[in-house]
């Protein structure tokens, strides 16, 4: 390859050359998040980061308790996500909320760090408002995005402006004094929410199910493994939970794990054993920590339970869906037989922009490598349990011996009509009875069957 000469453009020349077109904004909003429900994840993530910061600043010393409340109003078609975290100081409020991809959180412990997640709401409502207040001043500040206008501009082929021009068109500010407002809070309001995906955004049940799986909420009270899991995660400084409330429900949202679960209408199973593990980092230290809950492995768990699959979490927020580690299993299907989580600890493991998986790297490979080993062991358990059950069935006389290889193979040839098939079966059975070397005869039968069936 010819080397590129190391010549630099002057800054002014570069300014002329590099164009940031308006379509970038689409990439950062609607294109980024495929599942509309991810907006809950993005805003809860920002809220929990703000609460962490408030805790560090000692803002809850007066007895207030950190919480995140979500209100969904299907009639007004609004969603509000409010937290009593640190809020944003007046001097940076507007600047922070209008910046694109310039988060100061990268490299910190915060869950988000790219500074684009907050724009996800742009795609799903007509008006997106950020409202907040910090302890530094008495005023409430507001930044609003006119999402309707935003879409129009994106689709307008005549519009020649760049990112700045679009932002100028769609953003409004406001500030006011509100004596009733709390000393510090942040609020996201989505107005006139779109009816996307069966209006799933305003579906309380769907939102609750989603949040219970994805958000850093505590385990259900009475879940007998809760204490041990929480303690294990806490040892590594992760697994922190937050109280999240939906609408007027005074019960906080909890994780969906329970001591037992229904596999199907007629069959229940329960968790028997907790296994915890570490994923050592390539460069030393522990990259991740995880837990598995073993049960009787009767089969795949139903999806609606919201617990199946080996899942991935960072800062106790789920990354990707239940199938994020599917590829680590020798057979994909066994992922849905498993229950467990992997919590990332190392900053070398970076979630991708969409947060549906990790950025590819040697460290991610290393994680997959180790998780793959666990997956293999789960698969072994699944197979062993299944074989054990089959043997028991035969023993109890509940089912006939499974057909032998040659019978299975014979029955798989659809070209034979049932009369011929029976004739063949009788013929070979007789042959086998009289054969002195049964194993050899069987393998020969299996070998010649395809040809025989094609002739017959």
């Amino acid at each position, binding site marked *: 390859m010819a080397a590129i000469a190391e010549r630099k453009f002057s800054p002014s020349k570069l300014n002329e050359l590099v164009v940031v077109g308006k379509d970038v904004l689409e990439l950062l909003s609607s294109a980024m998040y495929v599942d509309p429900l991810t907006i809950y994840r993005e805003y809860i993530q920002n809220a929990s980061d703000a609460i962490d910061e408030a805790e560090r600043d000692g803002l809850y010393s007066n007895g207030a308790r950190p919480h995140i409340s979500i209100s969904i109003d299907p009639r007004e078609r609004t969603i509000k996500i409010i937290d009593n975290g640190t809020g944003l100081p007046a001097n940076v409020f507007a600047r922070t909320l209008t910046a694109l991809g310039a988060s100061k959180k990268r490299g910190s412990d915060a869950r988000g760090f790219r500074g684009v997640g907050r724009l996800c709401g742009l795609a799903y409502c007509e008006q997106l408002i950020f409202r907040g207040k910090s302890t530094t001043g008495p005023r409430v500040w507001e930044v609003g995005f006119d999402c309707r206008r935003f879409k129009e501009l994106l689709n307008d082929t005549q519009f020649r402006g760049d990112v700045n021009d679009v932002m100028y068109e769609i953003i409004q500010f406001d500030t006011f004094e509100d004596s009733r407002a709390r000393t510090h809070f942040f609020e996201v309001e989505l107005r006139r929410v779109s009816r996307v995906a069966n209006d799933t955004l305003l579906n309380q049940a769907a939102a609750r199910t989603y949040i219970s799986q994805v958000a850093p909420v505590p385990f259900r009270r009475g879940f007998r493994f809760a204490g041990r899991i929480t303690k294990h995660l806490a040892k590594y400084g992760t697994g922190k939970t937050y109280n999240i409330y939906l609408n007027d429900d005074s019960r906080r949202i909890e994780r969906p794990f329970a001591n037992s679960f229904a596999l199907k209408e007629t069959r229940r199973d329960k968790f028997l054993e907790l296994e915890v593990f570490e994923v050592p980092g*390539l460069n030393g230290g522990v990259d991740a920590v995880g837990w598995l809950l073993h049960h009787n492995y009767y089969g795949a768990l139903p999806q609606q339970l919201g617990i199946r699959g080996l899942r991935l979490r960072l800062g106790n927020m789920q990354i990707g869906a239940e199938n994020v580690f599917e590829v680590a299993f020798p057979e994909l299907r066994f992922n849905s037989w498993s229950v467990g989580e992997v919590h990332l600890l190392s900053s070398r493991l970076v979630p991708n922009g969409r947060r549906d998986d990790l950025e590819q790297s040697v460290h991610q490979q*290393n994680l997959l490598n180790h998780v793959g080993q666990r997956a*293999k062991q789960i698969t072994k358990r699944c197979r062993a349990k299944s074989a054990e059950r089959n043997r028991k069935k035969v023993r109890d006389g509940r089912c006939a011996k499974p057909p032998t290889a040659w019978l299975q193979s014979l029955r798989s040839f659809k070209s034979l009509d049932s009369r011929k098939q029976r004739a063949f079966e009788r013929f070979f059975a007789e042959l086998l009875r009289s054969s002195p070397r049964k194993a050899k005869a069987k393998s020969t039968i299996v070998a010649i069957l395809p040809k025989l069936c094609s002739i017959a």
Partner: protein
Amino acid sequence: MAGKNILLIEPGYKNKYPPLGLMKLAQYHGTRGKGDHVRFIKGENTSVLDTTWDRIYVTTLFSFEWKRISKAIDFALEAAGGNRNNIFVGGIAASLMHEQFVREERWHGIRFINGLLREPPAISLRLSAFDQELYSDDIRGQPIEDLIPDYSILEQIEYKYPVVDGYFAYASRGCIRKCSFCGVPKLEGDLYDTPSLTLIVNGIEKCYGPKKDMILMDNNVVASPRFKEIVAEIRDLGFTPGAKLQRGKSKALRRVDFNQGVDARILCKDPMFLRELSSICIKPLRIAFDHLGLRKPYETAIRYSHDVGLNELSNYMLYNFHDTPADLYQRMRINIDLNEELGIRIFSFPMRYQPTNMKDRSHVGEKWNRYFLRSMQIILQATHGVVSGAPDFFKEAFGETVETFHDLLVRPHHFIFNRFWYERYGGRDEFQEYQLEYEELSPTDRADLLSVLANFENRKFRYLRERISNRKVRNIFRFYKPLHDAEEEEIWRKQREWLRKPCPVPDDERVEDAGLELDLFAA
């Protein structure tokens, strides 16, 4: 960073020497190196599947063991959970047939190392610092090639290498020659010096205790400009004639073995070379005799070695290359004559040529055919691959003249395999009948018979017989009908005592890849 899990795999082929490359990698990663956990397996050992491996190295040796090598690489993939980035394949076959490995689609992403790990580790192993690969920052460390082999990993496997009690080292690498049958020019290139032998030997001794023998794998040590210094170094290390290693109460004779042989074309130039070599406890002295054209230098070299008292000689003999069976016979014969004349003992090891990039041993030289190769293999099987130096034994095994050798190669294989039975015992009548008929054949008939035999396969016997138009040939062809297992077992039962004689040469002096177990007709 320490504490990584490193898996070393040697494919499940039979070989004579422990895998030096893997032993050096073990040193690099092991307790004296990075402090990782090193596990060594030979073949496919499923117990390793329960561990998460941070890196897997597979070595490869003979190119014709492609099948076993493939199995080992596929197994490595399984052990790595499909993560190709963690797998490294190196060694002789991976270098000689580099392209064929790289071309295999299912192995895409595995790093195949061509040649030696002569650069600092991260560079030789092509580790990317950009991708933050494990140990990718090791760009200044000592090359893995120069490390002391870790003997301790050999205890992790059941397989016993015929040769282990030795210092495995090189005093020089590469070769000045470019013989077209040889892999060395491609593997190592021109002759060059290696780090001090003394350093390696002392290092091994310090870590793993003293070793009885010194196995030097130089390709052409006599061509080295440092030859005299090298020999002096070996002397200084205590490997002089009669030297013994004391271990506890027992004492064992030490020996030096340049196991790749030395070059007759250089030895014959100056008696100095053999005089030097006679000052160390070299046993056996291996000299290659690759084609009849080397007769003069070869004979001179043998005479020189006799003059300096080196009488235990061993001799590599390439066949199935550009040579004819007669050429091979003559070379073996020359050895016998020299033995008789000088009263020495030369053991020859005929070695069947295979192109260095062929995936199996199916190559047939232009002047050979499969039938002859199989005959030769059967003869050698009876002698464990060695052509004895004793004249009587030789004449019995290979015939008194080129013609009788030729007739022997033409014989039905079960006549060769059960020679005593057919020549002296129960099968004598049948054999004599065959011989009478064979002697009746005219040169044309014999040529016809040969052309049939060239394509001979046991299971094709009837098919071939039906297509022979020459009446005499068809008639004699009946003797070539393969024996049933039961018939052969019957013969063996009756003459068990002559079936196998003990091998006249100890295991560690024999050739490692004579291919005696291979069934030429199985493919």
